[in-house]
């Protein structure tokens, strides 16, 4: 397959994943010339003993670190100012964000302020507004999140930043930090990751982006259903304690998928499924990540049929090399879309109808779709976009595939 005339890629993060990954973190920070990191986390970070694990890993290196556990949805500019002062007054030289979503966004905003001047927060907003690399920044995930933590986009109150300098320098995925989660949050994370990765296939071909995207899709398809099944099993907690690490492999794979989806996100423009999902989230009670996943196959079908994109290779990470190769070429795309829908139907069964298969399941009305179509189309330059969005939403409403 031909490569496009021009393509780019960057992933500034160093990923360390697996057993005792935390113990590598002090050394990895050292390679960035950082010795005194400030951990930014929320109350769960301290209450569940997660911070303690990090402190222990640093103790063997004789390094000290600071801990702030007041992150959360209520954090505001006052919090940023307090952390800015704390960082400078105590001589910290790096930030470790421990958590997900809003915690990571707060930590990134603080890093913008401490790496330059506080005024940068107003001055450097928007796409590519940051001109210099920031101070060393590490991210320690704790199971579920938004799948954007490893990306370059940050939304904090009214502030918006989008820069490759906001991709973490170090990503440390340690099974000890992957706390037990509500299975719905795992599903939400995995579906956001799946959407970012699958939509990367719909853009111009980029072998660097696709290397990561296929891993995201592969990990989600291989592990999501099993993880949800296990998380809902009655004796799950006991099983985890007795069977230990091996049971965490699925969780570890899903967190890897979420982090890699962030790298993909930082290298691609937001796709239509992501924009439709966000618009649905703004106008209903449905989790935007679930909405993205529901509309995803319809969006990909629209790309394939209306725009003539060959997306058949997206089946490969879903089923593995063996089954991909065994599927005749003309059947591959249809099989891939069927796999995504099967994933949703299984989640519907496993969660006893809590995860919806369609927008109708999710309680949306047909009337609401029009406003969603308008909102998603507003951010798309294509002239036929509102009509395209309407068609996709109409199909996702009932779960009907978009026909060629």
């Amino acid at each position, binding site marked *: 397959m*031909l*490569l*496009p*005339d*021009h*393509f*780019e*890629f*960057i*992933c*500034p*993060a*160093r*990923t*360390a*994943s*697996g*057993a*005792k*990954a935390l113990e*590598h973190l002090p050394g990895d920070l*050292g*390679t*960035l*010339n950082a010795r005194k990191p400030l951990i930014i986390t929320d109350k769960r970070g301290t209450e569940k003993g997660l911070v303690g694990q990090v402190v222990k890993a640093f103790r063997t290196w004789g390094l000290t670190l600071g801990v702030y556990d007041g992150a959360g949805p209520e954090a505001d500019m006052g919090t940023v100012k307090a952390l800015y002062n704390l960082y400078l007054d105590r001589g910290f030289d790096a930030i470790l964000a421990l958590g997900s979503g809003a915690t990571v966004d707060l930590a990134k905003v603080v890093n913008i302020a401490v790496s330059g001047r506080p005024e940068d927060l107003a001055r450097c907003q928007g796409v590519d507004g940051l*001109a*210099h*690399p920031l101070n060393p920044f590490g991210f320690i995930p704790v199971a579920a999140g938004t799948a954007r933590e490893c990306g370059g986009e940050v939304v904090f109150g009214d502030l918006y930043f989008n820069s*490759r300098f906001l991709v973490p320098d170090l990503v440390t995925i340690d099974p000890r930090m992957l706390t037990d989660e509500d299975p719905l949050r795992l599903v939400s994370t995995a579906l956001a990751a799946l959407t970012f990765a699958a939509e990367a296939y719909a853009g111009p071909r980029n*072998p*660097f982006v*696709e*290397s*990561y995207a*296929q*891993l995201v899709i*592969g*990990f989600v398809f*291989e592990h999501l259903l099993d993880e949800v099944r296990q998380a809902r099993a009655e004796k799950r907690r006991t099983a985890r304690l007795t069977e230990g*690490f091996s049971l965490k*492999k699925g969780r*570890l*794979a899903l967190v*890897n998928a979420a982090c*890699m989806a962030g790298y993909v996100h930082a290298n691609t423009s937001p796709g239509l499924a992501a924009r439709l999902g966000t618009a649905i989230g703004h106008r209903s009670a449905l989790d935007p990540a679930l909405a993205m996943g529901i509309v995803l196959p319809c969006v990909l079908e629209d790309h394939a049929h209306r725009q003539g994109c060959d997306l058949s290779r997206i089946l490969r*990470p879903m089923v593995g*090399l063996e089954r*991909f*190769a*065994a599927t005749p070429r003309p059947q591959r795309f249809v099989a891939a879309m069927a796999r995504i829908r099967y994933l949703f139907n299984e989640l519907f069964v496993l969660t006893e109808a809590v995860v919806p298969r369609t927008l109708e399941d999710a309680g949306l009305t047909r009337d609401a779709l029009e406003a969603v179509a308008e909102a998603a189309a507003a951010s798309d330059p294509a002239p036929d976009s509102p009509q395209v969005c309407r068609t996709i939403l109409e199909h996702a409403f009932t779960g009907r595939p978009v026909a060629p």
Partner: protein
Amino acid sequence: MRLPDYYEYCCRVKIVAGHDALEKIPGLLGSLHAARPMIITDKGVAGAGLLEVVTGALQDGVTIGAVADEVPSDSDFKVVRQLARVYRQNDCDAVIAVGGGSVMDTAKGVNILVSEGGDDLMAFTGAGALKKRLKPLVAVPTTAGTGSEVTLVAVIADHEKNLKIPFTSYFLLPDVAVIDSRMTLTLPDFITSQTAMDALSHAVEGYTCLAKNPVSDACALEAISLIAANLLKVVKNPGDRDGRLALATAATLAGMAFSNSMVGMVHTLGHSVGAVCGVPHGTCMAIFLPYGLEYNMHKIGDDAGELLFALAGDAVFARTPRDQRARKAVAFIRDLNQALYEATGGRHPRRLGEITGPDGKVRVPRARLPEIARVARGDASIFYNPEALDEDDLLMVLEAAWEGVPLDPARIRKG
């Protein structure tokens, strides 16, 4: 998707690829706050007219502070010091390296001196010796093989002391790798084939050796697919710009794979034949690659089988019974070497015994194989090979590769 119990992956280099990627350099330098680059290259690159292509692409965007085209074929302390002086005398603020592995290594060395100050490169050997970002470094590869544009290592020779000194640091990674199809468009067919086989060996060993991880696997398979689909086509039609871009992209992907997963015995043997007999690296890689797979096959059966998917395509993979895939992957590489031999009029050697020098003499005399095996035993890459090798094993592989016959399965160690 195999997730190891633990893995690390890092490649911080920004990749900018395309048919007109060079024209992006002024903007890229601007975003790195540099405007007066020094270009480091070698006589071969300059002689092939590539330097003019680069300077032409830069002329409207930046002021070129200096151009140095005297990098030797193995980078050297003296040259590094001399080029650092040129950089300083001309008030440059960035380095653009245009060339193959030696140019890249030299440029990395120069960047150490001009960023850290002084003339003493030895002060910056060893882990952790470099502690801060260096000056902006833009790498423009011209061989589609080594992957040096995405590696954090520079090997620089101190010819006075007869030593090769490795430098390793994340700060040595170029800021940007610019992959432009024009840079390889004029490569002769046999250099194209050998450098691409170097990249293929990076990808294949990256996929099969002990430090593999999911990201290096994904990059490796992409690289192998691109090489297998384009190499012979490009050798037969050197002006194929799309094929050139595919091969150059594959070399970078392979560099990303092997620099994170390490390489094994194909490189062990290749380094040693290079050191003892001065054979070009790519030639050695092409010859030893099938032997590496054969020797390790009992340890890497499924992985080697998966290589067939990337090498021969999904249709061949699907029709080949699982237990035959690994052997078919080896056969595919041997057939590719044979096809390249024919397409280059015999200048792409298939076995050690048929490599000749400019004087027409055999370059690797059979009598020197024991010496090569001894040198190979001390090469660090041997530790990442799936199956162990002692001197006898190395010699057994060398003998087979000299004659160009498959390994005798009965003589392969099964540890």
